[in-house]
């Protein structure tokens, strides 16, 4: 399960016309007071339009990430090295699909529809986590996705369990419960590979080298370049800043890499005694934004696979509705 700890503007590039706040000051004050008291907002409660919009964007991007996230791993189901690994991978991919559904439902409580969200994803207008726009080249990538990508996602998602919007927070609690197996299975798969041949160990190192920096970018731009973060924090949607989460992830991962026996590909990565944290090198934000904008190595492939699957499933959705209608008509006739 995967979220990018930021909500990128879906219409990056376009200037959004800022409408002056026309919210009722009394309702606004009551809303602010509830947020300040660490209260929760539920679907029927009054909320400022900007809060609603931010949540719809963030939750739907989060849902899209789950759904697109099924693709790179799904590609490996038929090539998993054993029946055991295949069963594990199927279960994980199925979980990601479930997580997408929990999140779409949470977003729908805000007044958007499933069709609207899917249309946003399929037209390329809506964003999803940039990490899935990179290829999974060897079996070790599947392990590294579990260990690092899911690991980074868990760091992001745990604070979201305390999000001020009730349905989002509840979806996150369910997701986090299911998620920890994802990280552990990935790490364990890598441990097994590291006990294998020289070539297998090299595969693990290669996958780590390719994905490490992409995982660090998953936490979103540095706090200084993340103007929406402060508002998200104010509203209790975001609880911990991008840089703090990133630091937490690095500090947690370094000892895990050591046990695994791999090197993290950053010459500047070292323990800073004074800060009691690891220092680390520069993230390539240009590459990150290029990928978010649609120019990563797999953006087109992922989107077209997703659209194709959706279109090819159209007859199933139509048939199910036609069947339901027929059953209903038959019931009416019998009752008459």
């Amino acid at each position: 399960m995967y979220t990018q700890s930021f909500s990128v503007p879906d219409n990056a590039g376009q200037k959004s016309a800022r409408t002056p706040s026309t919210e009722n000051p009394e309702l606004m004050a009551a809303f602010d007071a509830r947020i300040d008291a660490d209260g929760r907002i539920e679907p029927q409660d009054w909320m400022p339009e900007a809060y609603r919009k931010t949540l719809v964007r963030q939750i739907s991007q989060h849902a899209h990430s789950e759904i697109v996230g099924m693709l790179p791993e799904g590609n490996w189901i038929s090539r998993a090295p054993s029946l055991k690994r295949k069963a594990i991978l199927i279960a994980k991919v199925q979980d990601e699909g479930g997580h997408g559904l929990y999140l779409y439902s949470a977003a729908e409580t805000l007044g958007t529809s499933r069709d609207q969200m899917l249309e946003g994803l399929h037209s390329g207008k809506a964003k999803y986590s940039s990490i899935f726009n990179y290829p999974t080249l060897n079996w070790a990538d599947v392990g590294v996705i579990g260990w690092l990508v899911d690991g980074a996602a868990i760091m992001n998602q745990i604070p979201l369990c305390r999000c001020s919007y009730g349905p989002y927070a509840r979806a996150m609690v369910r997701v986090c419960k299911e998620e920890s197996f994802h990280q552990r299975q990935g790490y364990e798969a890598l441990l097994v590979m590291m006990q294998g041949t020289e070539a297998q160990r090299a595969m693990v190192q290669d996958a780590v080298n390719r994905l490490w920096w992409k995982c660090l970018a998953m936490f979103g731009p540095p706090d200084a370049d993340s103007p929406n973060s402060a508002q998200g924090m104010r509203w209790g949607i975001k609880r911990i800043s991008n840089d703090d989460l990133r630091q937490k992830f690095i500090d947690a991962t370094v000892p895990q890499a050591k046990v695994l026996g791999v090197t993290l590909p950053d010459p500047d990565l070292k323990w800073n005694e004074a800060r009691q944290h690891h220092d680390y090198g520069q993230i390539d934000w240009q590459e990150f934004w290029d990928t978010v904008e649609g120019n990563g190595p797999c953006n087109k492939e992922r989107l077209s696979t997703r659209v194709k699957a959706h279109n090819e499933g159209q007859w199933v959705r139509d048939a199910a509705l036609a069947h339901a209608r027929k059953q209903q008509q038959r019931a009416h006739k019998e009752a008459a």
Partner: protein
Amino acid sequence: MNTPALKEWPLWEIFVRSKQGLEHKHCGSLHAADAAQALHMARDVYTRRQEGVSIWVLPSAAITASNPDDKGELFDPAADKIYRHPTFYEIPEEVGHM
């Protein structure tokens, strides 16, 4: 009798009984064409780890909910009726548990 021509599958609310002896609890919602499909999908979406022994599905449109604006009117009157709680009454120690 006309049934509305739907484009999207309607929304269902899902309730799961986690074990025999406990109540069904709301756990989320999903889209499905009809009740049978909703049950089937609820099994896949909400009970992948033996979270339930029984499922209810209910069309979301069938729920009538109280209005948040009426919260005060509906629920505040109970706030000053502390005599409805057992702790309101003082009973001599020697009586023991009551």
